């Protein structure tokens, strides 16, 4: 694979880390994080935490004021079949979102989603 494409991969979150092909979005879900409140956010990087702490919601309006939310997006590479999950933690504030943390799990740690 060309060096140029490898460099471009840095700026494309939906490119496969194995073969650098463009991945397709297979599913996404919004979650509330009842343990995480505004002013008391604690950063977590282990998939185990997210498996336990997330509560699925249908829309942003269901998340109580001052509670953090989390968006999970799963990608699948059509070329090599590799799967990756993007975890985006944010604080919904009226119509805006304050992004707190974005994580990628591409070793299969987040393939089973909390429900």
């Amino acid at each position, binding site marked *: 694979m060309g060096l140029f494409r490898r460099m471009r991969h840095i700026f494309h979150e939906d490119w496969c880390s194995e073969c650098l092909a463009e991945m397709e979005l297979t599913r996404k879900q919004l979650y509330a994080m009842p343990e995480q409140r*505004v*002013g008391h956010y604690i950063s977590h990087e282990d998939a185990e935490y997210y498996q336990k702490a997330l509560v699925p919601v249908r829309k942003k309006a269901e998340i109580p*004021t*001052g509670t953090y939310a989390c968006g999970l997006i799963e990608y699948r590479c059509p070329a090599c079949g590799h799967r990756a999950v993007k975890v985006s933690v944010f*604080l919904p*504030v*009226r119509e805006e979102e*304050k992004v707190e943390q974005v994580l990628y799990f591409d070793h299969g740690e987040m393939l089973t989603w909390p429900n």
Partner: protein
Amino acid sequence: METSEKLQKINFLYLLLNIVAPVVFMIGMTVLGLALPQQIGVFFSIVGFGGAMLWWCFLGHKFYEKTRGAQIRKLEESGFVPNHTFNADGCTLIVDLVNAQVALIFRWNPGKAYVRPASALSNVRVDDGRGGAGFLEGSSRVSFLFTVDGMNIRVNTFTSNKRWRMDSDYILTGISKADTMVEALTAAGANK
């Protein structure tokens, strides 16, 4: 547990003591230093100046935090349930959703905790401090306000000496905190 005393944001004796007592200490130590041999005298003057500075910059606030902690403990012992506590620079607001009450402890009057029924609060709202137009639009203060006993209380959730864009992390966090507290106050008011 409700108190009927008139709300007093500033206890002038406490405020005066906070300003004057360190000055008296500083002058006293300097005068004492003058009466003592040179090196010990200089040491006393430095201790006097340092002590006063320490009080104004650090110990005064520590003392307030300690007094506030004691007041909150006293409230809890009397059956007050602190469901939401917000510590701002000027006051501390505690919401009890169970008994539908609100407690207020002021920075310059920490010796008293004023407890009122949440339904006594009116005009509860958020002020995002939005100002300016176009690319200059922003805010340097986010707060929530309410009126109790005819007195307007403003509790800041964010303050800065510069203006921040309305979508900046600081402003969004301030708005979220203010929204949360307004929601808690409204819920407590509706409980009764």
